[in-house]
C-alpha cells in the first residue's frame, strides 16, 4: 500500500477540469470562446484565473470591465473558499468539466468579498493558518516561525511548489507525542442547505479518557443529522477533497493529511444523490 505521504501529494495535485464561459449579458465586441483550464483544488479562484481574465478581456472593451467574479448555476462562488471545497459543495454530482460562468459586471456585494490583489488572498490564507495553529498549538508554532517562513508557506501555495510548502507546513503538523494529537482540530463543516456559512467548534482529537475521536464522533457532536442511522437510506454525503472517508477514520489523521494548505479540514455535507 502506498505511503501516507502520497495522500499529501494527491491532495496537493488534485485538479478540477473547468470550462469558463462568459455570462451571456456581458457586452462583447465579438463572441467569446469558452476557456478550458485545470484548476488546482487546494488553491483559490482568483489566484489561478489570470489566464481566464486575459482570455475574455480580448473580446471586451475596457470600459465594460469591472472586477471579475464567478458563479455556478447562479450561485456566486466565494473566492476565499478553496476551489476544491467550492466544487464539492456545489457541483459534486454534476458532469465534468465544471461549468463556471464568468462575470465582469454587477458584483454581488452581499455574497462575495472583493479581491483587488493577491495580497488580499495572502492575508486571508495566512489568517486561516494562524487561526488553525491557535487551535492546534495555542499559536506556538506559527509564532515561532520567522516572517520568511510565513512567506514560504504562501509562496509555496501561490507557485504550486509542494516541497517548498510542506518543508514548512510539516512543522505546523507536529504535536507532542504524549498528547497524541493537536489540542483542537481545525475544521469547518459546510452545508449547502443552511444559511450559516459553516459550523466550527472546539473539538479534541482525543477524548479525556484517551479515546481516539473519529470523523463520525465529530459529526455526531456537531452535526448529527449528517449521519444516517442503519435502517434508513443515506441522506447526506460527507465529502473532503472529493472523497468520502469512512466515518471511523481518526480525526487526527484526517487533520494531518486531508487539511487544505490553510490547515483547516474543510468538510462538505451535501445531500446524497437520489439516483
Amino acid at each position, binding site marked *: *500500500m*502506498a*505511503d*501516507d*505521504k*502520497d*495522500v499529501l501529494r*494527491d*491532495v496537493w495535485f*488534485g*485538479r*478540477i*477540469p473547468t470550462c469558463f464561459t462568459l455570462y451571456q449579458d456581458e457586452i462583447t465586441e465579438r463572441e467569446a470562446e469558452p476557456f*478550458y*483550464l*485545470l*484548476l*488546482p483544488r487546494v*488553491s483559490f479562484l482568483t489566484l*489561478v*484565473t*489570470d*489566464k481566464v481574465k486575459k482570455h475574455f478581456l480580448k473580446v471586451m472593451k475596457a470600459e465594460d470591465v469591472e472586477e471579475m467574479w464567478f458563479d455556478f448555476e447562479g450561485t456566486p462562488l466565494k473566492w476565499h473558499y478553496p476551489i476544491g471545497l467550492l466544487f464539492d459543495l456545489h457541483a459534486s454530482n454534476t458532469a*465534468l*468539466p465544471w461549468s463556471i460562468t464568468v462575470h465582469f459586471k454587477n458584483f454581488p456585494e452581499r455574497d462575495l468579498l472583493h479581491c483587488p490583489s493577491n495580497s488580499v488572498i495572502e492575508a486571508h490564507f495566512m489568517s486561516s493558518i494562524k487561526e488553525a495553529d491557535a487551535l492546534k498549538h495555542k499559536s506556538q508554532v506559527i509564532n515561532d516561525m520567522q516572517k*520568511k517562513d510565513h*512567506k*514560504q508557506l504562501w*509562496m509555496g501555495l*501561490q*507557485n*504550486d*511548489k*509542494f*516541497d*517548498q510548502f*510542506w*518543508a514548512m507546513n*510539516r512543522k505546523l*503538523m*507536529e*504535536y*507532542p*507525542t*504524549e498528547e497524541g494529537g493537536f489540542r483542537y482540530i481545525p475544521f469547518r463543516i459546510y452545508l449547502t442547505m443552511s444559511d450559516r456559512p459553516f459550523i466550527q467548534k472546539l473539538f479534541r482529537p482525543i477524548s479525556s479518557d484517551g479515546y481516539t475521536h473519529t470523523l463520525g464522533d465529530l459529526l455526531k457532536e456537531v452535526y448529527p443529522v449528517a449521519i444516517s442511522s442503519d435502517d434508513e437510506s443515506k441522506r447526506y454525503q460527507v465529502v473532503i*477533497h*472529493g*472523497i*468520502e*472517508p*469512512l466515518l*471511523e*477514520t*481518526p480525526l487526527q*489523521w484526517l487533520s*494531518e*493529511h*486531508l487539511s487544505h494548505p490553510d490547515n483547516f479540514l474543510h468538510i462538505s455535507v451535501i445531500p446524497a444523490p437520489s439516483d
Partner: protein
Amino acid sequence: MSVSLLWAVDVYGRVYSLSTGGQQWEQCQDAVLEFKRVTAVQQCCWGIACDHHIYLNVHSSDVPIRYQEETYENQRWNPKDNFSDHLLPSDRWHWSDITGLEHQPLDSFLLPSTNWEWEGDWYIDENFGGEPTEKGGWTYALDFPATYIKDKKWNSCVRRRRWIRYRRYKATDTWAKIPSEGHSGPLPDPFNDISCGGWEISEEPRGRLSLWAVSLQGKVWFREGIHHHSPEGEGWEEVSLPGEVVQISCGPGDLVWAVLWEGQLIVREGITRDCPQGLCWVVVDSPNPEAGAIHVAVGDNVVWAVTKDNKVWFRRGINSHNPCGSGWIGMVGEMVMVNVGLNDQVWGISCVDRAVYFRQGVTSSELSGKAWKAVNVPRDGDIRSHSSASISKGGPQRAVLEVGTCPSSPPPEPPPIDPDVPKPRIPKVTSDSFISEMLSDRQVKQEAATTASPSIPEEEVWSNVDLEETQTHLAVGLSSVATYTLCQGEPYGADEHPLWAWVSGGGCGVNFWTLLSLPALASSVQSMSLSISPAQTAAWRKQIFEQLSERSKREMDHFKHYEQSVWVKKGAMQWWRDWKPHKWVDVRFALEQFSGPEGNQDGILFLYYNFNEEKKYLHAFINEVTILVPVLNDSKHTFAIYTAERTKQRWPIRLAAATELALLSVSCCDSRGIQGPPSKQAIWSVTCKGDIFVCEPSPSLEACPYPTPCDQMFWRQVGGHLRLVECNSLGVVWGVGYDHTAWVYTGYGGGFFQDNIFTQTDVKCVYIYENQRWNPVTGYTNRGLPTDRYMWSDATGLQECTKANAKPPSPHWTWVADWTIDYGISGGTDREGWQYAADFPRSYHGHKTLKDFVRRRRWARKCKLTTTGPWQEVPPIPLSDVTIVLCGAQSSVEPIPLWAISNKGDVLCRLGVTLLTPAGTSWLHVGTDQPFKSISIGGANQVWAIARDGSAFYRGSVSSESPAGDCWYHIPCPERQKLQQVSVGRTSVYTVDQNGNLWFRQGLTPSYPQGSSWEHICNNVRKVSVGPLDQVWIIADKVQGSHSLSCGTVCHRLGVQPMEPKGQSWDYGIGGGWDHITVRGNSIEAPRVRMPSLTPSLTSSLTDPLRPPPPRSLLPVMITEMENGNAVRC
C-alpha cells in the same frame, strides 16, 4: 553551539551537570568531595569544596592543553676547540632564553604543578623561520646578540640552537586542588565564594579568564595568570575593598559586581584588557532599603540581584559605558540565588521548591525575560528508581525536560513529620543567602534551629571538620550556621525531587530557542506520525487511497489536454540598471512558468523598464540561467543572474527583491530537471559572502581536448553559510564556518520533508579603522590633513565608515556585540590598539617611533547570521582548514582519512569517519612544533601541510594502519615566498603562496614523495583545488571580461593530462566574488576521445566532439595591478 554543560550543586554538596545534549543530571564522577559552590565556563568548572579549598575541573578535549618550553644553547668559536661551550666572560649563559639574559639550563625547567606531565624529552628544533636547518639545528652569527642565519660563514663566531620540550596538562575531567597561596605564603582564611568569567576582555586565542574569590572574612582575591596554557593560573592577589564582601559575580566581559555584608552592592570599574582586575569600586544601593541584597549575578549586559526577602531584581540601564546601571526593577518569583549564563540567560533556584529554574524569553532585546520555568530533569540516580513508575503511568519512557510554570505562591505548609517516613537528613548549608538571611533575622532563625535540632538524631546531623573550622572563623555570632536546617525538618526521602543549592550556567550555551530544542524536550515533540501506525492496514485508510485514485481518474485522466493554470508571478523589483550612472531603479517583473512539451517546467523572466521615456524590457530564459547568486548589500536583499554570455561579460543582471530568489532558484532547477541532493561527484564552491553552491559535473568536464566550457556550468545553492567546504568522491562533505565551527553535510533533504535541514549560525566581524595624525601642538588628533583619508574609514581609507553608519554585511546579519578595539591585527598594536606609520597608507607597526606621523587602530564588531542548511555541527574544536582523502574506502564501515587544522593551528586527524558516520567520532592530535594553517591529503595517503610561518611539510608513513603517520618532513619553500595553501590530487601537489603565485611540485615519485622543487605556474591565484583526476581548479583574481573585471573567479586548468600534469591554459567560469572551490569529489573520467583527424568515424557518435570549441576569450590572467571592479562585490 556545541554540547555544553549546566552545573549545579544539590543541598548535600553533590555536583551534577546537565548537558545540553543530555537528558538527565549526571553526577560528577569525583564523588569523594562535596562542594559548596561551582562556577563554570565553557572549558572548565571551578568549585569550592567543603574543605574550603578551590578545585578546578578542566573538561577533557581531543586537543590537549600543552605548553612549549624552550631554551637556547649558545656556543662560541675559538681556534682551539672550534665551536665549544667556552664562552667569553662577557657573553651570555651557555644555556639561556632567547634574549640571553636569563640563565636557563635544561634541568631548571620544572612542572608547574602535579597536574602536568612532560610529553617527551628535550629535542632540537631544526626549523629556522620556515626553512629547514642543517642537522643539529645550529644558527650562526657574528656575535651575540645579532642576526642569526642558518648557514655557517667564514665570520661566524657564535652559534646557538633552540631546544624544545612540551608539557601537558593531565588533570582533566577531575577536580584538581588549587593551592591557596598568595604572593606571601598561604592565604589567611579560606574561600567562601568564587566566580569565573572575563573571557571576552581579551582576544580569544589566549583564552584568558578572570577568577574572583571571596574569603570567609569578606576579602576579595583575584586569580592571576589564568589562560589557555595555564588553566590553573599563577597566584592570588588581594583586591582592596570598601567593606566586607559576601558574594561576587563576574560576567563574560568587564562586569563585576559584589554584595557587601551590609546589603549594598559594589561595582568594579576600570576593568580593561591590560587591567583585568579593575581599578576601583563604586557602591550601588540595595534595591530595597528594608532588605539588603544577599546575592548578585552579572552577565554581558545584565545584572540580577536577590534581596534578603528572596525577591529578585533586574538592574536597568547596564551597558559597557555604564556598568552601574540606572535603577532596579522588581521581578516576579522568589529565589535563593540566580546565575547569569552565556547569552545573558538566567538560571535560578527557587526558594519555594529548591528546583532549578530557567528564565524564559531572555533575548537581546528583552534581557529581563518573560517567566520562570522549572527545569525538571531527572538525575542519573533517579532514573533507575523511577523507571518502573513512569512506565506504569503509561507516560513516555524517555526522560522529558518538562517546563512548568513557577508557583507564584508558596506551596502548602510542609506536612508534619510522619514517624514512618525515612529519617530526615539535614541538608548541608551551601548558600550564602541563608547566612545573610540569618544575619538579619538571627534571633528568629536561631530559635528555629534550636527548635529543630532536638527532633533530629545526633548522628544524622551533617558535620564536617572544615565546617567547624568555618565556625571558628565566623565566631562572631555565626555559630548557628552549621546547625541551621534548611526547611525545618521537611523530609528529604530518596523519592523527593532534587533540592538544589547552587547553579552555574556560565558554560551552558543555551539561548531561549536552543533550550526548546534540547533533546530532552525535543524528544517529546514527534514529527508527523507518518507510516508508523497500525492504521496502515485499516479499512478507512484503504478507502481513502482508493477513493483518491478514483478521484484522479474521474477528474483528471480525461482532461489531460486541458491547459494547466499558467503560473504568472508578477511584482516589483529593483534592477541595477545597465547604463551609467548605474543605480537601483524600480522595475516591474513577470515570471511566466509553463509546462514544456515533455512535462518539464520552463519559464521566462521579464523585466519592464523605461529608457528615455520609452518602455522596454529585458528577458532571461530560465533554462539559460547558470546561477542565481545572492550579492552582499547592507540594506537590500540583492542577487545576480548569470547566463553563460553574462559570465563572459562579467556583467550579470542584478536585482533587489525580498523573496523572489527562492522562487527563481526552484524554477531554474525545475527547468533543468535537477532535483534532490547533489551527487557525490558534485563540485562545491563558496562565495565570499559565505553562500554555498554545487554544480553537477558533466562527463566531458575534464575531457581533453574539448571540455565543457566552464561558464556553462549550472550552479545551484545549498542552504547554510560556510567559509570553506571540502568533499571527496564518496560523498563525505565537511565545511568550516566564519566562526571556525566545523560542520558535516547531512545529505541534502531536497524534496519533500526536508529532514536534514538544521539551524546553522555563523559569526563574523565587521572592521572599521580609526585614523589619526600627529601634530606638534596637540599630539595625535582626529584632525587630519585635507588630503588625508577619513578619520573613520574602511581598510583602504577610501570609504568613510563610522561606528554609527557601519552596517552588518547584509540584512541577514544582526549585530550581537558592541564595537571593541581589535588587538589581533597583523603588525601588532600598542596597549591602546594603535598601529603607527610614517604616513597613510603604509605598513603599520605596533610601537611609535620618531618617524611616525600617523596611527590607526581597528575596531571590530561581531555580527551573527542564523540560517538553515543540511549541516550538523561537529563540536567542540573550531577549525581553520579540513581535507578528506580523495578516494579509497568503498565499504560503508571502512575508515576515511580526514585531517584538519584547528583555529589554534593544531593538526588533527579525525577518527571514525566512514560513509555511515561522516562526522567521525574523535580527533587525534598530531604534534607539531608550530601552528599550521593548511592541509591536504591526496591519493595514496599523501599528507601535505603548510605551517603559519609559510613553510611546507610532508607527513611521512601515513597509511590505513597508521592514520596519523609518524613524522613531518620539512620541505623548503619556493625562493623568498611564504606558502599559504596546499592541495594534493591523485599525484599532483599544488600550493599557493602569500603573493598569489601558484606552484607545482616537481619530481614526485612513489619512492620520493616529497619531490624536488617548485615550479611556478601563474600568479593572481587565491586558492587551488586538485581533484582525484589531478584536475586543477583555482579561484583567480583579476580576470578580465568584456564588460568588467572580476576578482574571485572560478577557473579550470585546460590540457591537464597524465603526462602533462601542469596543463596549458585557463578556462574562466563563474565569478567574481568566489572564495573557495573543491573539485575533490569529481572522479568522473571523461569519455576517451581520440583526435578527430585520426578516427572521425568513431567520434561522430559522441556528443558533437567534432565541433570546434566555441570562440572563447581565454584571456591571460593579468599581472598588472588593477582596481577592484569585480562584478559581484566582495
